[in-house]
């Protein structure tokens, strides 16, 4: 033991966690006479190898009992029923109480027990009542049936499936307490000779077996429901042993001061003498004997080990081992032995492997593994996994059994505990490098191994006081962690924040690559600008809106607008949402940005959102003004024209008594033309500088539509025709006036003349024109257009076409 020899365990209250967990020691107050100023007791926590992990001063009430939870937290039970939980570094976790009744009556004795998944506390109050909390992390006190008055000799907790029962020995009676029954059930273990009362009980770790010791020194071993008796053994001692414990499931151990008596379930017994006062720690597959100088593991030698290593054993494993040894010595013995196990090499290999698993000395492990591998080379088809697993796992076990780590685990315990839990325990003890090496060595997936360990390391790191700047720490953490998958910088940053290191948290969250987490943490830390920046980088608009929403609630409107103007995308998103919800805010932004053009557009939108003519007009005037300020000349001009048009339309509405509002200039002119108001249209033409071409079109279409043929004819006489006569023809035809159309057909430009003549049905003329143009293709066109009534014409065209002087 690393603590040196100076500790006499006899003076201490000792509690050891299962699975090679830590030890807690505190001076046993009952063993010392109280002095006037006995200081507050200290609680020491050691690793299984006696290396001190921590110590702390116990400042609360009278400490009655110590124990460990499954997750290696120290459970301290006070006389008044308060139960406090500390971690193995002596850091206080939480406290709960066993209830008012317990507080009033105080506790006689307490037991900390582990059930299937959780750790519980059971107490016996001074009023002879049993109370229990079955999970210390979710404390709920349950009361057990009352026990009749009288001294309770001893009691223990027995798990049965999912129920937790309590066995109480009172005088000559053995009582079973459970939830189902209202009152205690008496039990009658079958003693060889009746009489005597039970003074000590021990339940095996798996809760299946129980050992009862009577005051006459008789030991009864049987099933935990007391129904089956395995054996009865006479310890031949009236002295009550210090401890009674199970060694795995195969034997019961009685500990007196320096003697250890091992009684197997068959009743065979052996005694050992110890060098110092010791303490027994019951494990699932053995027993640890904790002394001042040494820490031993007592275990039934597994059958496979005896078979393989036993002297003179003829088991396949033993022969294979012999063969392997012979092979190394280049002796023919190798061949002889192999020959004997020809048919059972595989079994031999498995035996060697299993034996190696239960060996503690690396030397022996190596020897057995070598033999196993030697044997395996004869069966190439054998699954290599078991070999691999044995080799790798043993290496891990050896590493954690090292006194510097001090986790004396057996193979079976590790199987039960599983590797991830082992890694957690290493991490918990802050053996980060070892944990990392193991994870690497076993090639665990990163999310289970490396990254989890690193994350724990980082969380630990941020809690450590350090001279380094936050920036440096963050960088250091990042350089170790990188972007290993599964690492959550959010968790680390949260941890730092909880520890009051906000700046470090801010630095750390910078490394988080999941934008959502990052932004949420940044907002919580009050780093709003950074949060916004990160949200923008993520491209996730929902996230950006969330930050904006948060900012708007936090800042004044002015501050908010000033802030987001540094972030164009955020600003445009905000503008976007304003367009839907909040026009006034939008105007504020545009004003702030001196965006006159934008303001102008907003005014125009407003103009069309109102039904009142005057405010419509006013908005347009405002818009024009803003466009002028923005130097958007064309927009300004168009708006002004619209204002002008509105005025004209109002005037027209009055004079004509017809609705003109909301009509475009085109439609206004068109309407006026239909009404024959040519003078008005002329005015509009001048006022709005309607281009000639459009004006002509307007007039032609409108006159034709209104059947103003005369007007159309007069208009056509205008010399400066910019559109030709095709529109005239089309307009007439469209309104079903072929005669009128024909009037204009001859005036159509030459290249279109044939087509238009045909359109008007003037086939004769078309032929004539075609003849003049001397174009065969034109003639063909006409020919196609000919109907049955044009037979003469048809034959004439045929004749003409045969004339070769026509061009194609």
């Amino acid at each position, binding site marked *: 033991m690393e603590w040196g020899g100076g500790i006499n365990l006899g003076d201490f209250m000792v509690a050891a966690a299962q699975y090679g967990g830590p030890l807690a020691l505190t001076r046993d107050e009952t063993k010392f006479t109280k002095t006037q100023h006995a200081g507050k007791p200290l609680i020491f926590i050691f690793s299984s190898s006696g290396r001190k992990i921590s110590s702390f001063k116990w400042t609360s009430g009278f400490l009655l009992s110590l124990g460990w939870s499954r997750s290696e937290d120290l459970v301290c039970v006070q006389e008044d029923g308060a139960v406090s939980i500390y971690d193995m570094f002596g850091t206080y976790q939480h406290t709960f109480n066993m209830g008012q009744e317990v507080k009033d009556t105080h506790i006689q004795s307490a037991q900390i027990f582990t059930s299937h998944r959780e750790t519980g506390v059971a107490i016996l109050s001074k009023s002879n009542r049993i109370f229990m909390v079955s999970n210390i992390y979710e404390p709920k006190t349950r009361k057990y049936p009352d026990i009749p008055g009288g001294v309770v000799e001893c009691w223990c907790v027995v798990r049965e499936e999912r129920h937790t029962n309590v066995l109480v020995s009172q005088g000559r009676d053995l009582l079973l307490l459970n939830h189902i029954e209202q009152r205690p059930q008496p039990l009658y273990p079958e003693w060889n000779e009746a009489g005597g009362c039970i003074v000590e009980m021990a339940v095996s770790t798996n809760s299946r077996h129980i050992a009862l010791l009577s005051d006459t020194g008789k030991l009864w071993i049987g099933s935990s429901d007391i129904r089956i008796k395995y054996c009865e053994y006479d310890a031949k001692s009236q002295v009550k042993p210090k401890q009674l414990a199970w060694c795995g499931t195969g034997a019961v151990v009685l500990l007196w001061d320096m003697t250890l008596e091992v009684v197997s379930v068959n009743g065979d017994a052996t005694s050992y003498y110890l060098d110092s006062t010791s303490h027994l720690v019951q494990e699932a597959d053995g027993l640890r004997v904790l002394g001042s100088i040494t820490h031993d593991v007592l275990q039934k030698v597994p059958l496979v080990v005896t078979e393989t290593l036993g002297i003179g054993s003829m088991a396949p494993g033993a022969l294979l081992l012999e063969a392997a040894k012979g092979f190394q010595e280049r002796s023919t013995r190798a061949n002889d032995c192999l020959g004997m196990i020809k048919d059972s090499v595989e079994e031999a290999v498995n035996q060697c492997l299993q034996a190696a698993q239960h060996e503690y000395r690396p030397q022996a492990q190596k020897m057995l593994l070598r033999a196993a591998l030697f044997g395996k080379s004869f069966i190439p088809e054998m699954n290599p996994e078991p070999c691999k697993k044995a080799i790798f796992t043993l290496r891990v076990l050896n590493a954690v059994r090292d006194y510097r780590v001090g986790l004396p685990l057996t193979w079976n315990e590790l199987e039960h505990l599983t590797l991830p839990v082992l890694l957690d325990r290493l991490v918990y003890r802050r053996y980060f490098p070892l944990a990392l090496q193991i994870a690497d060595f076993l090639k665990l997936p*990163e*999310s289970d191994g490396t990254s989890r360990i690193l994350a724990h390391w980082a969380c630990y790191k941020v809690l450590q006081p350090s001279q380094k700047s936050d920036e440096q720490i963050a960088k250091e953490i990042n350089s170790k962690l990188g*972007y*290993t*998958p*599964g*690492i959550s910088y959010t968790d680390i940053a949260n941890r730092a924040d909880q520890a009051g290191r906000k700046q470090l948290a801010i630095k750390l969250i910078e490394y988080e*690559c*999941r*934008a*959502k987490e990052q932004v949420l943490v940044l907002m919580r830390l009050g780093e709003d600008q950074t949060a916004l920046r990160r949200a923008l*980088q*993520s*491209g*996730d*608009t*929902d*996230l950006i*809106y*969330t930050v904006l*929403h948060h900012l708007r609630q936090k800042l004044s409107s002015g501050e908010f607008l000033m802030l987001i103007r540094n972030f*164009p*995308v955020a600003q*445009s*998103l905000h*503008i*976007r949402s304003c*367009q839907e919800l909040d026009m006034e805010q939008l105007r504020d932004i545009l004003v702030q940005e001196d965006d006159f053009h934008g303001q102008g*557009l907003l005014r*125009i*939108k407003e*103009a*069309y959102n109102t039904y009142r003519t005057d405010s419509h007009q006013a908005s347009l005037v405002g818009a024009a003004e803003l466009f002028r300020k923005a130097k958007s000349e*064309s*927009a300004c001009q*168009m*708006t002004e*024209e*619209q204002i002008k*048009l509105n005025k004209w339309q109002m005037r027209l509405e009055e004079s004509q008594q017809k609705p003109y509002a*909301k*009509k*475009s*200039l*085109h*439609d206004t002119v068109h309407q006026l033309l239909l009404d024959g108001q040519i003078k008005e249209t002329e005015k509009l033409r001048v006022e*709005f500088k*309607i*281009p000639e*071409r*459009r004006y*002509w*079109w*307007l007039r032609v*279409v409108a006159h034709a539509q209104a059947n103003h043929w005369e007007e159309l004819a007069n208009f056509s006489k205008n010399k400066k025709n910019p*559109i030709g006569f095709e*529109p005239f023809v089309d307009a007439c035809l469209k309104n079903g006036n072929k005669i009128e159309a024909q009037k204009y057909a001859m005036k159509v430009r030459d290249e279109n003349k044939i087509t238009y003549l045909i359109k008007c049905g003037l086939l004769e003329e078309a032929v004539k024109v075609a003849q003049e143009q001397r174009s065969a293709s034109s003639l063909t066109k006409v020919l196609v257009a000919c109907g049955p009534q044009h037979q003469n014409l048809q034959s004439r065209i045929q004749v003409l076409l045969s004339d070769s002087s026509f061009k194609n």
Partner: protein
Amino acid sequence: MVQKMTGGKVDFALIKEATRIELVKLLDSIPGTKAVVWDEKLAGAFSHVADYAFLRTHDVCKMFYITANKLPPSNVAHIIFLARPHTSIMDQINQQLRMEDLQGSTKKDYHLWLVPRISLLCERRLQEHGVRGSFTTVRELPLLLFRLDCDLVSMELPLCFRDLQLDSDPTSVFLVAQALMTIQGVFGLIPNIYGKGQSAKQVYELMVRMRREMGGNEPQVTPQIDQLILIDRSVDLITPLATQLTYDGLIDQFYGINNCTVKLPGEKFAQTSSDSPPSDDSSFMDTKTVQLSSLEILYAEIRDCNFSAVGPRLSRHAKSVKAQYEERHAAKTVGELKQFVQKIPQMEVHKQSVATHTTIAELIQEQIASGIFRPALQMEQEFLKGLDTDKISPFIEDCIAQKESLNTVLRLICLQCIVNSGLKPKILEHYKRDVIHTYGFEHFLTLENLEKAGLLYVQQGRSTYATVRKTMQLTVDDVSEHDPTDMSYVHSGYAPLSARLVEFLQWPGWRAITGVLQVLPGPTLTETQQLPSALRQRRGSVGSVQSGGEGGTALVFFIGGCTHSEIAALRFLSSRVDQGGPEYVIATTKIINGNSFLQYLSDELGGE
């Protein structure tokens, strides 16, 4: 040119399947009877994934809509609100929930499923309303991609281009990146990424980010797609403005294809379906809804053909139908007759299909012949050839003067502007004034929007279109419409710039056209994604791509929408796999055409 009906190596049916699995997972996570309260906008798109019958097999027994009214009473154990993450919808849900409370109906569990993703903003909104706690669960259903065909998915985000260009709202970029992560989740990491345009770059950057966020949890899928080509719509604004001349393209332009269905005027169809009894409910005959599915052999054959090639194909099919029926005379023995009878149902289907498409073709023919379709097309083709683009076009002027459709007019002006690399200030002014004068000041904002979206602008510097046109061979004079040898058949002589970019990427490579790439807006992207080592080794052996001596598969993603003509052009490229090119699959934010493209950008004042 016949397209395969089943997918190539990459079939987007898998995407649909993946979404369905997600949906089933969600549904089965809630045991007991359920009612679904739909966001109305989602219901339609959802039919791509799961129909009512499917939902019913998962205990969904009632369907309602999210409205301002209270929910009808029902005796289900769970009520699921299925909604898009919009705060306004959250407000409605809040109201409905409160009315449920008032009713004091029997205890129900409420669930909220957001499509395509959970929104913090919405959750906060519900918190503010104080109803966040009423929901037992809030989950997301990552439904981003809708399969339209085995080689085509759409995100159904019609406003993507507008959001990006007009409102600088990058939401759709984020969604595109997410959709690509979904695709990569199904088809594996895409090793090579190319792209052109600002948003292409942004999408790529977000993909890198998202990949990092996933950490080591990337799905281990053997890559099935070799290349990703991201095309920002603003790189090629010409194509959406050009008239599409494929069968699909024309149907879409005249009638609009939505979710693979098109609504057509019904009266034409009334005569053809002779077997149906003369209908009394003539109101139903007003429109006829036709499902356009590539499972229909005839449609699959003609959809990407130039319209002038559709007629001959239809008549050939008509003849074959007739010939098949004639076979009955040849059937002499009972056995032969039986064989013939067995074929009848199939023949009936085919006959119906020929009839339907012949009618559609007639409808299109009418549309083409009427109005200014042909002259406008002629104008457009002159512009595309770069003729007289720097002058005011008398044709456009006349169109305006006759108040032809505003869409056509704006389309032509924008087209002229783009091929001229901007218009002279005077010309632009002239057009704008003309438009406002004729169509009204209500269109003022639309013009502003077009300017902001980069479709109308004042010329700065020399026109670059000539170079682009020449290098990229955008116009081809002697293209065969019936038996095309070049993709330019889709616009009868103009090859979509976007599709040409894709074509040139494969050969001779983008390095050969650096000049053009510099001229086109936005950065050029050439990136590779490192595959996880485990997958890299396997690449050589299983299902891989380059190894088979073929061109592999390339995914072309259009950010801001793509046209049917572009789809046809890329399918045309796919049909030439034998020439060593890759097989293309296409993803887009929405299928657009000249009308819808401009429609999405317009803001008519005083409209509604």
